[in-house]
């Protein structure tokens, strides 16, 4: 298996979980029509809040609660600005991000001076399931946060798809006027959604600081909040798409972590990328295929030509693996580049964004 071994899967799951949790919160908030661009700031505050409480009390559970409360408070500012004050959501998101960066850096530098490192979350082995080869250690020998994330996502999927509350929430994001006329409280719904996203992002941030690393560093969320927003867009505002996007980002991130240590890119990376490109092209074709005249004529789209060309190049690389070493910073840029490529090739959306996304609701519109 070379570099793609069980330890690789474990690290990919650890990277994916906080992004997935933050993205789930963002998804709920966006389905209700509030685009929270300040997610990065909320995550960072969560990371700091968790560390702060842990620094004071030494309790992991209280630390996570602290992170969630910090996220909740920041999300409340976002809700106040976007729902009550009806400020442009992108601008208020930028404000939150800046405030989060500055506030956490200042407080950390000023008040938590002897930095303390804590033990990360303990792993909990699930008895029978963790004995499954490969999947067992990756999925069922993880910490409590990852199990909680999995359960929460299932709950959110159920709530969004099967409950009146979820349907009302989506209605608020699609057509607040109709939802209002049907007696759904727009403000309450949006407040609930934004606060929920704050809870999720706060917990995800706390996982970054006290759950995974055990210490807080300035700006430690390192763009994961942005990746979470990108995952929501790429995932087409569906939970399944969100899972795919988070998986892609996490695998890219885990690969880059591994390759930094190895240096020369081994052959199996080229094979894996090639398989991925082919898979994406085939899936894309099948998706678009149904009833499209273009498929019948067998003509290739521009993207597919580009895809075929890259497959050919990758094949050449597999046969003759060159000794390419990429400097560390370029590896670090890889997940973001991949997110950009993913968003760019996704192109014209299959799924529409919620119609009222980022549009404040004014009752006088009715």
């Amino acid at each position: 298996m070379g570099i793609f071994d069980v330890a690789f899967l474990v690290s990919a799951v650890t990277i994916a979980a906080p992004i997935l949790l933050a993205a789930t919160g963002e998804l709920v908030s966006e389905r209700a029509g509030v685009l929270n661009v300040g997610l990065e700031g909320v995550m960072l505050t969560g990371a700091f809040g968790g560390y702060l409480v842990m620094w004071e009390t030494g309790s992991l559970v209280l630390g996570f609660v602290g992170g969630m409360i910090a996220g909740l408070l920041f999300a409340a500012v976002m809700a106040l600005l976007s729902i009550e004050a009806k400020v442009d959501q992108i601008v208020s998101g930028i404000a939150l991000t800046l405030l989060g960066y500055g506030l956490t850096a200042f407080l950390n530098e000023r008040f938590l001076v002897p930095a303390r490192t804590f033990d990360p979350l303990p792993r909990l082995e699930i008895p029978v399931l963790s004995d499954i080869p490969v999947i067992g250690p990756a999925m069922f020998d993880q910490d409590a946060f990852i199990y909680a994330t999995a359960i929460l996502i299932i709950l959110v999927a159920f709530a969004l798809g099967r409950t009146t509350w979820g349907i009302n929430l989506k209605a608020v994001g699609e057509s607040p006027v109709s939802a209002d006329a049907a007696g759904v409280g727009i403000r309450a719904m949006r407040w609930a959604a934004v606060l929920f996203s704050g809870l999720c992002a706060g917990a995800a941030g706390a996982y970054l600081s006290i759950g995974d690393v055990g210490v807080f560093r300035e700006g430690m969320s390192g763009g994961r909040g942005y990746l979470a927003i990108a995952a929501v867009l790429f995932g087409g505002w569906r939970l399944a798409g969100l899972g795919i996007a988070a998986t892609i980002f996490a695998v890219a991130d885990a690969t880059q972590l591994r390759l930094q240590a190895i240096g020369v890119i081994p052959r199996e990376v080229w094979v894996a990328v090639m398989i991925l490109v082919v898979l994406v092209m085939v899936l894309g074709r099948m998706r678009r295929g149904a009833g499209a005249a273009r498929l019948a004529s067998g003509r290739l789209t521009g993207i597919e030509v580009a895809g075929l060309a890259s497959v050919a190049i990758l094949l050449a690389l597999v046969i003759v693996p060159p000794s390419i070493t990429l400097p560390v910073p370029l590896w670090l840029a890889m997940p973001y580049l991949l997110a950009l490529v993913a968003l760019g090739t996704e192109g014209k959306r299959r799924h529409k964004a919620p119609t009222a996304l980022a549009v404040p609701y004014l009752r006088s519109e009715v």
Partner: protein
Amino acid sequence: MLMRQHLPRVLVTVGVIVIAALIASLILLASGVAPVDALSAFWEGTFGNGTNAGTTLTQAVPLLLVALGWIVATRAGRLHVGYPGQVIAGGATATAIGLNCGGLPGALAVLVTALAGIAGGALWAGLTAWLWASRGVLEIISSLLLNLVAIQVAAWLVRGPLQGTASQEPQTANFPPSTIWPSVPAIPGQTLSFDVVLLPICAVIVVLLLSRTVFGFGLRASGGNGEAARWLGIDPKRGGVVAILISGGFAGLAGAALLFAGTAPWMSDGFEAGVGFNGIAVALLAGNSPVFAILTAVVFSALNVGGTALQATLDVPSSLAEVLQGAVIVLVLLAAVLARRRREQAPAPQPAAAAKSLALVGTEEV
């Protein structure tokens, strides 16, 4: 007439600054520093003598340039936040070209570095523009991700292709003396660069461009109402792309100014130093007025310079400045809403205008 028009805006800005000063005093008191001491140290560090005043004014230039970029882009309805990345791209391009321009005469070399900065920033912004116009990717997400990529690319450049041979530090070789932007010789320490003339010139250019030219009208039409713009024969997509490119050019010029009119004659990977996001804050504090932004740019620059001085003299973390900058944006947003509420209460309400509050930051008159 003019006075009455601008009075509310001035009041808002003064009010915000007073509240921010109160917040700062509270934070200072909480961390055990007398606000009076802090104020005198702050004044001494920013305008107390010619050298420091020169630094403050010179550092206001990149902030204003970014702010002007934001004003142009928002007027065309494109709220992208790729300024940090474009500042880095512009600075890096200017560095790459400037390092090879040692033979050119001074004036020409300065012009070449400035143009290289503009080109680099506009190219980096071009990625965002392309992704938005032809691939339908939200410009805010792509620009956020491109910021993260640019940070890593800059880190790689100063450790790889552009690293100076003289030292092992991650920084480039010293710029050739002829490419350094000239500074006023009378000021001790030569801290006042001649590029402060860009403050009024660029602001006036943007005012005239937006309010007095057909081109500027096209931009504002594309930002205001896409449907109406189409009826006028204006392609809102083209307007958006051009606006993003112009804003990238401004940010790139800011990057060149940071390096070639800065304190150190080389490029290191942290040279951007938050200018990209703070420039947005400068524009917001000025209510998106280019002329007023000169003043707010100086205020923000003073916050940065003064924050460093406070750290040096009173050991207050310089991230206090970032906290205040974040707080200032939130306060400005709230103040804008309060002002609008009052305006709506006084005369007959304008539901149509109110409903378009998404364009709040974009539609104010020049």
